[in-house]
């Protein structure tokens, strides 16, 4: 990745809705250059998708999220990849990470209720060949999401006009 692409990503990860024109102005480059780079990063999968960070609590949205620790016996040839990909394919699953340490896969899941999550663990994940054990932790409160603190500091207390 070039320095320009890195700069573009820095700006986009802060505000994905900003226009290429504004990015171009901020970096003193041509607008078309920015568009080309973004298209390239989209195509090569550097940019996965553009999304909104939602604070469910503030949105009054009742979803249940859980972090499931999964211990797995790696398969010959494919190691952890096969089972990780199968778990990742479920729409309820938000993220799947291979971890170092006491367990192997960290699975972040989101569903409508506690029962739904419980069913997903017992009926889906546990039944995979190779899964040794699971430990499910429900998320209680989010203090920081994707680098953004949910309860904002009093945004701007500055005096409006100053020397």
């Amino acid at each position: 990745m070039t320095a320009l692409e890195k700069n573009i990503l820095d700006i986009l990860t802060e505000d994905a809705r900003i226009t290429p024109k504004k990015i171009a102005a901020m970096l003193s480059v041509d607008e078309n250059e920015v568009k080309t780079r973004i298209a390239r990063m989209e195509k090569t999968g550097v940019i996965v998708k553009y999304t909104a960070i939602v604070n469910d609590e503030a949105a009054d949205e009742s979803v249940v999220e859980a972090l499931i620790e999964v211990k797995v016996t790696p398969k010959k040839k494919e190691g952890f990849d096969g089972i990780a990909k199968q778990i990742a394919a479920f729409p309820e699953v938000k993220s799947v990470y291979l971890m170092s340490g006491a367990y192997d896969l960290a699975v972040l899941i989101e569903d409508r209720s506690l029962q739904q999550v419980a069913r997903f663990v017992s009926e889906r994940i546990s039944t995979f060949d190779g899964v040794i054990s699971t430990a499910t932790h429900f998320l209680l409160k989010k203090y920081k999401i994707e680098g953004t603190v949910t309860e904002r500091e009093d945004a701007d207390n500055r005096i409006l006009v100053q020397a």
Partner: protein
Amino acid sequence: MRDFVNQKAKLLQPSGIRKFFDIVRETEGAISLGVGEPDFVTPWKVRAAAITSLQRGYTQYTGNRGIPALLELISRYLSERFALDYDPKHILITVGGSEAIDLALRACVERGEEVLIPDPAYVSYSPLVTLADGVPVQVECREEDNFVLKPEYLERAITEKTKAIILTYPNNPTGAIMTKEELEKIAAVIVKHDLLVITDEIYAELTYGKKHVSIAGLPDMKERTIYISGFSKAFAMTGWRMGYVCAPAAIDEAMFKIHQYGIMCAPITSQYAAIEALKDGFSDDFATVEDMRDSYDKRRKFVLHSLAEIGLQCFEPQGAFYAFPSVKASGLSGEAFAESLLKEEKVAVVPGSAFGSFGGDNVRLSYATSMQSLSKAFDKMGAFLSKRK
């Protein structure tokens, strides 16, 4: 009853900004590009260090000069970042850079002596000279000269009463900086006329492209220079009021006495915060400061681009976080532009006239403001200008 108010204080002009501030405050939903401080909150590590100092019970006076560890760190900081050589025993921690300016003037200026001040410049210098019984003399800095102080203008302003010159680069409100070569030319005039330099370098960390050079580091200048800086701008610490001043021994001693009797010492909590800001800075090459500067730079470029797009001509600022465009294209003076823009589009900028007598056709925009606000503000300014074409 007698009139109890001192005549000097009575005749002091209220800040031109104050009047404008009152109008802005009453304008609901205004976007302000008039703010004169970083839009970053002090980094958490620094705040945490202050909290810890309180938990440990550090709530007393410190020595008049400041906490020795902080003086040591500032000495090292000035040496490593700006190649300046100041012994901790000639550094004095002040309540913001503001106190340092006041101390410098009171310690050195005799009644009737003239102090040269670049114009446009920050609003406090001239009133503080007056309060110190001196006579402020404005030296014009012109846009066609990139707002730097030219030796010929300086030479013209000097009389036998001239005692000192205030330098203030990177400059608020113009964003101008002075290069080493430009400073050398000024230094020659200063030495020739045996003047004292009071240099306020509070924005030193915020330059874009060229690295800041201090006049205090030029040959033969240290002994006639009072160097002022602080934590407000570079470390996003305005409210902590952490400044410092470095000066030759005799001047330092005079300032020390005024500080000792008038202030006693800078707040201890703020001093502990400043210690952390520097320690943290040394641990990672001042990455936090660099990140903030990088963020300002992106917005600076956006502002310059947007100004060109809406048809306002602007000198390219190289430092601080202000742009100082000319609004001549609108057919309005800076003051009329600022007032109408606020009334019609609810965008606040500061008229250049607030910063002296030579910025009347300009306004100051602060880009220490979120990209969202800047974008909106420029859309509105564009609409405002197109009505006038």
